[in-house]
């Protein structure tokens, strides 16, 4: 990049930085935003933690679409990288230290994921964090050379991937039966429904992120 355009770029970006900084500095120091609106409605949400309430109840539609985005990304990845018979990189056999660590860590990680899922109702945690820990456990397993056996890599895998979104959509539609709007949970069932959705979502998010990491469609013995 020649000197003139480099200087021009610097000037434009500096102007952008100054404009954004100006906008940020002259914002009011105290701004409620939606904090009071959320805390007023916490009694109707079914959980005790504000972020979980926003994610799964007040803005549940956004979370539903986000799970669909995860699935879309996976479809994109699988359509670009064909089902390969051989792996693109040859992974060296896992060292004994790694395998020992794997045996120690995987049960612990599953436990932590379960805890994060449960505690999300009244403390920081929730489906995404738990799903991420599950995905990390899955990535560790993939790095140790473990692969899904042929039987499990076909329809069971697809079922696991879709479970979270399907459960969310099913609950969202089922509550409409009594004449309510989409995703309008009945008050006394809100907590239970949220936990149900989060459990399915945790499993799905873990499997989807693991599949995104793996990159190619796993080898199945069924015909695609």
């Amino acid at each position: 990049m020649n000197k003139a355009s480099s200087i021009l770029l610097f000037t434009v970006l500096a102007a952008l930085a100054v404009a954004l900084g100006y906008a940020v500095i002259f914002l009011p120091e105290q701004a409620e935003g939606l904090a009071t609106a959320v805390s007023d409605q916490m009694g109707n949400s079914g959980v005790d933690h504000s972020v979980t309430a926003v994610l799964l109840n007040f803005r549940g539609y956004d979370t539903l679409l986000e799970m669909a985005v995860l699935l879309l990304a996976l479809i994109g990845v699988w359509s670009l990288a064909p089902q390969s018979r051989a792996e693109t990189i040859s992974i060296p056999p896992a060292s004994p230290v790694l395998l020992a660590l794997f045996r120690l860590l995987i049960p612990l990680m599953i436990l932590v994921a379960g805890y994060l899922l449960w505690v999300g109702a009244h403390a920081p945690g929730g489906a995404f964090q738990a799903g991420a820990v599950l995905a990390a456990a899955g990535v560790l397993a993939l790095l140790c050379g473990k692969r899904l056996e042929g039987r499990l890599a076909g329809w069971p895998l697809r079922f696991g991937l879709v479970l979270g979104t399907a459960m969310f959509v099913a609950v969202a539609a089922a509550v409409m039966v009594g004449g309510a709007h989409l995703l309008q949970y009945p008050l006394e069932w809100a907590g239970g429904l949220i936990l149900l959705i989060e459990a399915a979502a945790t499993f799905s998010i873990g499997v989807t992120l693991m599949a995104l990491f793996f990159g190619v469609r796993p080898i199945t013995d069924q015909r695609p």
Partner: protein
Amino acid sequence: MKESWLFAFDLMLVSTLLWLAWRALATPDLFKGIVLFIAFGLVLALVWVRLDAPDVALAEAAIGAGLTGALLLTTLAKLGAKSREHERE
């Protein structure tokens, strides 16, 4: 007294964040850049904690730093393998 110590800590966090981001983008070695990006993600998780956002901190540490870093490193390895294959042909 405590206020100024905390503010110094914040200034240090901010400068570490900006320095890590700059080095991650500017270093000629891609592997080093990705590792610095993972470090950036972890410092960012600390920043989330400082900003009273523990849920975001958990998500950032696991997904933002961990999974994105793993994805980038795997891609770098596959790019290197493809280069070697092309050279052999």
